[in-house]
């Protein structure tokens, strides 16, 4: 698996599903507490990391609060939850 296959760009629909999942889980920015995010790439972690289940991804989220000091965060999702 090269670096290009490690991270994948998401479609608009997939991004929407990620945001929906984040909202349902009450996911908030660890720094400022905001619940509004921009969705980035999805990193497939199921293959690379020992502790991860086979279908796991970490999706990059960027906090939309301009004053947030650590805006880059991520949410762990199963591929089946957002990649369909």
């Amino acid at each position, binding site marked *: *698996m*090269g670096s290009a296959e*490690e991270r994948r760009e998401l479609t608009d629909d997939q991004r929407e599903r990620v945001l929906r999942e984040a909202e349902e889980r009450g996911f908030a920015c660890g720094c400022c507490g905001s619940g509004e995010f921009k969705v980035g790439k999805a990193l497939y972690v199921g*293959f690379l990391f*020992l502790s991860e289940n086979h279908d796991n991804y970490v999706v990059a989220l960027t906090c939309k609060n301009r004053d947030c000091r650590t805006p880059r965060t*991520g949410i762990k999702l199963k591929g089946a939850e957002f990649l369909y």
Partner: protein
Amino acid sequence: MEFGYPWWLRIEHFANIIFMVFLIRSGLEILATHPKLYWSDDSRPGSEWGRFTKKVMPKDKLYDTLDEEESYSSLVSMPGHKMLGMGRHWHFITVLGWIMTGIIYVALLFITGQYHRYVPYSWEVFPRAWQDIVTYLSFDLPPTLPGQPFNAIQQLSYGAVIFILAPFQILTGAAQSPAIEARFPWFVRLWGGRQWARSLHFFGLLAFVGFIVIHLLMVTVHGFGPETAKIVFGREEHPVWAMLITFAALIGVVILNVIATKYTLSHPRNIQRWFGAVIMKVRRLGLHPLTSRQNYSKSELTPEHRVNGKPPDVDSYKIMAAHDFVDYTIEVGGLVERPMTFTLEDLRTFPTKQTQRVLHNCVQGWTSIGEWSGIPLRQIVELVKPLPEARHLVFWTMQDTERDEPSAEGVGQFYETIDLDLAYHPQTLLAYEMNGEPLPIKHGAPLRLRLETQVGFKMAKWIERIEFVSDYSQIGEGMGGWREDNVFYDQDVGI
């Protein structure tokens, strides 16, 4: 001239028995760490022609070559039980003694004229050697050559072992040194590549084992008492005493092996310090000054470069990776005039990006060929300006070995040290790209070291901090790196 069995020949013969036993056993320990043999420098999984393991690797999870390591019994390997560090120490210290003994032996052969016994001066020796084999197979003893102590097949066999097989093993062993390969890429190509050299080295081992078995059989066939008398007393006298002394000597060799093995398993740190003191001096003298001059072609790149080590299994790293390492920074400090911090973007925009296509040598024996791009480390060194007392660089990584490397012995943050002079080598690189793409996570993203004259474990991956120090004895167990501390490798590993 008279071909006898002078005292020096008999002493060297006995020393050789000890050396060969340790060389073979420690060689098998080294083989156990990657019990597969290849013809291609790609070492592609599944392409091995020789396989000495039943392990099957998973397809749905990242595995590394530490997972492929086998644990052999101490009955066959030295010291056994998956201790590559100790196997390497025994192999290298023994090979030094073996080579020195061999040089003295060959010198004395020529000084005294005894070498004539091993040289076939007539082409007739070759058909006679074949006749000798047929004679042996007919359960009879062939006659010796006129004026010689040996028959034709003995002369050819002994001559081949001394003047062909022994140098062959030394040269194929040297061809597996990353320092020699990096400085003289033609030398490793001469053997057909690094994995050819490793495979040929294995065949050399088989040839030695085969020779020893046949040699012992022939001694028995010719008469154990009279034959051992020649090598014990120098002439055919007191055969019973000769046999008793021979058996006692062989029991002594076994006892020596048992004691050495038990001590190595119980006190590996002492072996590492004692043997390392000798081996490191030789390496620093012979291999350390060699600089890498490799430039493999694009067509030689390994399609799927093998992996060792597993990435940091922690959410902060995964989130950083998901964001293409935008938040990554590396600190460079310690004994420097100007401590600095760089982002990945800082490193990428350095004007002196360097690309090199090189052979990667894992300490376990596999190889792959990769293209690496990044910044020559010497440029970072020149920027931060080491203080006069700085002697080594410590590469601290994001890897927690207890969490990330369950196959490895030991715990704690992974780190490695290198000597400062290696940082100035022309192909010592802080690499952020591999094969024209951002460095993959499994190969150390976002930043790893490339140090082409050393084996792979020195090339720290997932680096987060570089520290200049005067001495590493207070870091970890004080041996110069996590693997040195925990699996007893040497700090300088040009072979």
